[in-house]
């Protein structure tokens, strides 16, 4: 006897309920009750359980239990998995090539080419000798303690993923800025991507792709890091001075001219702020992604946790901090340069 027996009998569903009847106890508590031989007498209203799936199942065996929900989700996902990966696999294959290519190039180019090249890029985007010296010093330090390869792997992954985030995120942001409907549709998705614990979306990806493929962690990083660049592109374009837009219209700009000559240039400071955030978030994710075989400093962190190697964990963690500071400073400095050239 359970609390909600009367509910089902009053609805005349007894017959339907008894179809699912089985003698086997369905839950642990029922099993315990059975072995103890306790008689579950009707309880007072004070003890009535919430009419949840499990509680209702006690009264009516045909009613599904809540674990069927998670099970159903899993089975549903497994059912569409093959056809889904049939579509997604070729679509995302270039990501694997990019990542593998970047990793190969970073590691197989001698250090005396890679380091000056990186420094040249830093100087090009920031025009600051001081910052370049700082970046140079940091990389030399990492290389000196034999973390050069790991750091370069992490950098290579971030470059590829951040680049793809911008490539995909900026057009999405622009489309959002142009259509309020699209904005209403996409914002909940972005909210979800941002609040979902990063570990959670590793799980379906593991089902979809093989763990040996680099696109697995690539997708995880991109999904996690693309949000700020979309948001800030959308925001930046929506914040472009209405007067300037009106002037563009009054002088007869086509929508395309308006986009490329007014909206994107004026939204650039915001877009760049989004790129900065995207890079920082890919760095955060690349560490977590080492759980699914992403190479780089994250692997060392993971080793530190697994084997409780305190020193390894601390040093690699410090390496990640150094990379974060470098990436943040460099993108912020280039952002400041853009801002300075177009303040109003």
């Amino acid at each position, binding site marked *: 006897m359970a609390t909600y027996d009367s509910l089902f009998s009053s609805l005349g569903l007894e017959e339907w309920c008894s179809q699912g009847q089985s003698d086997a106890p369905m839950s642990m508590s029922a099993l315990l009750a059975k072995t103890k031989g306790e008689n579950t007498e009707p309880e007072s209203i004070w003890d009535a359980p919430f009419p949840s799936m499990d509680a209702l199942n006690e009264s009516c065996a045909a009613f599904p239990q809540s674990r069927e929900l998670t099970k159903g989700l899993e089975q549903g996902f497994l059912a569409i998995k093959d056809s889904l990966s049939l579509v997604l696999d070729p679509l995302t294959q270039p990501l694997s090539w990019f990542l593998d290519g970047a990793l190969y190039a970073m590691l197989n180019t001698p250090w005396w080419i890679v380091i000056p090249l990186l420094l040249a890029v830093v100087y090009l985007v920031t025009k600051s000798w001081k910052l370049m010296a700082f970046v140079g010093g940091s990389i030399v330090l990492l290389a000196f303690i034999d973390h050069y390869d790991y750091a370069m792997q992490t950098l290579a992954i971030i470059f590829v993923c951040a680049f793809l985030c911008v490539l995909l995120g900026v057009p999405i942001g622009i489309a959002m800025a142009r259509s309020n409907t699209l904005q209403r549709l996409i914002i909940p998705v972005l909210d979800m991507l941002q609040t979902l614990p990063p570990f959670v979306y590793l799980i379906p990806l593991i089902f979809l792709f093989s763990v040996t493929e680099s696109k697995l962690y690539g997708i995880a990083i991109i999904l996690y890091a693309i949000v700020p660049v979309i948001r800030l592109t959308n925001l930046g374009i929506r914040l472009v001075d209405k*007067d300037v837009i009106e*002037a563009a219209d009054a002088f*007869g700009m*086509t929508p395309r001219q308006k986009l490329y000559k007014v909206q994107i240039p004026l939204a650039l400071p915001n877009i760049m702020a989004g790129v900065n955030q995207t890079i920082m978030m890919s760095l955060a994710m690349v560490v977590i992604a080492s759980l699914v075989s992403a190479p780089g400093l994250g692997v060392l962190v993971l080793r530190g946790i697994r084997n409780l190697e305190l020193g390894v964990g601390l040093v690699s963690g410090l390496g990640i901090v150094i990379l974060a500071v470098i990436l943040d400073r460099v993108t912020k400095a280039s952002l400041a340069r853009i801002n300075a050239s*177009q303040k109003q």
Partner: protein
Amino acid sequence: MANDIKISIRKLFKIFGPDPDVALEYVRRGMNKADLLEQQNHVLGLRDINVDMRDGEITVIMGLSGSGKSTLIRHLNRLIEPTAGEIRMDGEDVLSYSEEQLRKLRRERMSMVFQKFALLPHKTVLENAGMAKAIRGYTTSDFEADARKWLARVGLEGNENQYPHQLSGGMQQRVGIARALVSDAPIMLMDEAFSALDPLIRSDMQDLLLELQEELHKTIVFITHDLDEALKLADHLVILKDGEVVQQGDPQEILLNPGDPYIVDFISDINRARVLRVRSVMKPGTEAEDNYAGDISERDNLETVLERSGGDTELSFRVVRDGQQVGSLHMKDLTKALVPTAAATESRQRA
């Protein structure tokens, strides 16, 4: 004065709200702005506007904030679509234009100057000046000479490679004007173009505009909330209130014969001697008198004449245009014209 009509606005209505067509019916039946807002939840932008703007003249549309003047000017290049009515430009119905035709109109036949300048902050002064040409597909080298010429003309020689944020407000608006001039469009729309500038610079800019107009003879539609500015610039003055035209015509005529207590109120604060011109108060005719104290131009304002007379109310002057006498002005008539309208109406009522 007998120029062709360049822009003609007929029976123009604009109502803002979710269902303007229904609201339009109420307005046509005579519902006023306040009732429309209260009962129908629609905002009356413009009601039954009929204005003709002549080629080569400055038409000034004046009104306080909320009178619909900015809405009206944006109808001319269809930045705002009207609810009902007709806008003709060179005889063509602008409202029937396709998107392509409209773009051509905005690119080639119209230019606009904005209250907040609306320059592109990431482009140099030179590139901003050539914006209209750049939009039409010209490269910088195509329009550079033109842009430099007009920038020099508005007093910005040497600033070509600066960015707008490096210039003061007055200089930025000069770029705005140069941008409109480089476009070579015959019609210039100026939306409160000088309102954001401080008074001295504003006066400079007004002089600059009049000077440019002397040689260019563009059709200028100028929006302002400042009566002094309106009277200084206008060939044709349109006064708007709550989306309706209260009075329009020659500004001198409006000043001497205000048709509405609202306008009387409006003009009571201005310096009449500075605004009124000799031609509006003189006695026309060529009959010669002997005791003229001197020659004055019909374009002189009364302040200049007062200055010349030294305050002597017995004098009279010969009014000339291009060296020919066109009338005469006795200082007594001049003094009468200076009596404020409100006071004049009162004394007439007492008599």
